[in-house]
């Protein structure tokens, strides 16, 4: 096995063009498990941890560009105000040790249906920045997940960053698990409310993370945007039903399909209440 250790992005892209079989490794929280258990013996590992530009983030014109190699701990510590939904999801990842290493880029690369950040990326309307020697392109989060642990990357491409809008309304994320740490989601849900935008997405309840379009359109039409008042129970319940109806979960060791469907309707109802409170607060601040 070759161990390739580029120190610049250009160098990494040149390597990936020549060696599309090279498996990228950043925090190692997925890749090393496969190596330790002999589930995978790649021809080459492409270590991304020495590329400084992947471990940076910046904000421009209301958009955060989050380098693919920024660990979750830094998302929580440095971006809790700008990206509250993503920070909430990051807090539920693994344990402190895992959050110190794991990255959003790694979450996207693995593209597990249960990955914690995916529902937030979908609900905020994030764009995934990918690059190769052929150039750079952006993939909308909703076009990125193509199947169970499959994504829209070409073999010569690397994930370089994620672009997300700075939060201006309410953002929430919630996840079901057997304890408060070291949990792969039984199911998860994210919701983002800002003027003229409703984003909502489910995790661990379909072959890929997915947006729930019908539920989003329902809310966009029904929410009292101009005179934000507390929401009627009937509206929250209907939203929960629409979210649950978009799920196509399976029975597995973590939970049954029926439980996941029910739990999603509850998560959707609760997070809607919290996100709407957040939105109302942001409107009051502006007034």
């Amino acid at each position, binding site marked *: 096995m070759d161990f390739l250790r580029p120190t610049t992005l250009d160098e990494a892209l040149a390597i990936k063009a020549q060696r599309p079989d090279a498996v990228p490794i950043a925090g190692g929280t997925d890749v090393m498990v496969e190596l330790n258990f002999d589930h995978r013996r790649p021809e080459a590992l492409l270590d991304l941890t020495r590329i400084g530009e992947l471990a940076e983030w910046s904000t421009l014109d209301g958009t955060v560009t989050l380098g693919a190699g920024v660990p979750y701990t830094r998302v929580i510590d440095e971006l809790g105000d700008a990206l509250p939904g993503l920070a909430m999801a990051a807090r539920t990842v693994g344990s*402190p040790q895992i959050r110190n290493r794991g990255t959003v880029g790694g979450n996207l690369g693995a593209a597990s249906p249960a990955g914690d950040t995916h529902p937030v990326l979908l609900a905020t309307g994030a764009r995934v920045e990918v690059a190769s020697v052929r150039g750079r392109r952006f993939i909308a989060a909703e076009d990125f997940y193509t199947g169970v642990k499959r994504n829209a990357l070409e073999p010569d491409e690397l994930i370089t960053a994620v672009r997300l809008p700075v939060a201006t309304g309410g953002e929430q994320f919630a996840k079901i698990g057997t304890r408060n740490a070291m949990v792969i989601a039984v199911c998860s849900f994210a919701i983002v409310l800002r003027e003229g935008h409703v984003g909502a997405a489910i995790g661990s309840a379909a072959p890929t993370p997915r947006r729930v379009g019908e539920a989003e359109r329902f809310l966009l039409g029904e929410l009292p945007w101009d005179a934000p008042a507390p929401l009627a129970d009937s509206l929250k319940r209907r939203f929960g039903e629409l979210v649950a109806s978009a799920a196509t979960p399976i029975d597995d060791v973590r939970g049954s399909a029926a439980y996941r469907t029910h739990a999603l309707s509850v998560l959707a109802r609760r997070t809607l209440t919290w996100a709407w409170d957040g939105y109302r607060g942001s409107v009051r601040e502006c007034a």
Partner: protein
Amino acid sequence: MRLNVTVNGERRQADDVWEGESLLYVLRERLGLPGSKNACEQGECGSCTVYLDDVPVCSCLVAAGQAEGREVRTVEGLADGDALDPVQQSFVDAGAVQCGFCTPGLVVAAHDLLNRVPDPSDEEIREALAGNLCRCTGYEKILDAVRLAADAR
């Protein structure tokens, strides 16, 4: 490969290292530092926790090749000669050690917590130790040890 890594302040070298083996394997099997324990090899148990460039990580999830040129501090590097670190002494004094297998990882995790948060709340202690599994104690004595260490520092 020949791996160059600074461990507990000392520059060390190991030969014939496979880049895909874990830093934990390097520490235990090649550098004679068996303090960090090998249990789950998947980041679930925290018993292999070490500092990598001052950040606590599961050493089982760091590829040896990624550790090249980096600084590692293991549980063996916490004591000052024969004088135990306050966290280690508190684990002894509080009776927080039963079989002892999880202890090195917990000591490193607690050490990091107290460096960042000198006077942690119970919630902060629980959160900081959430990635370290102990199957003997039920954790109460471990929480006592961390509170004791916070008072002692």
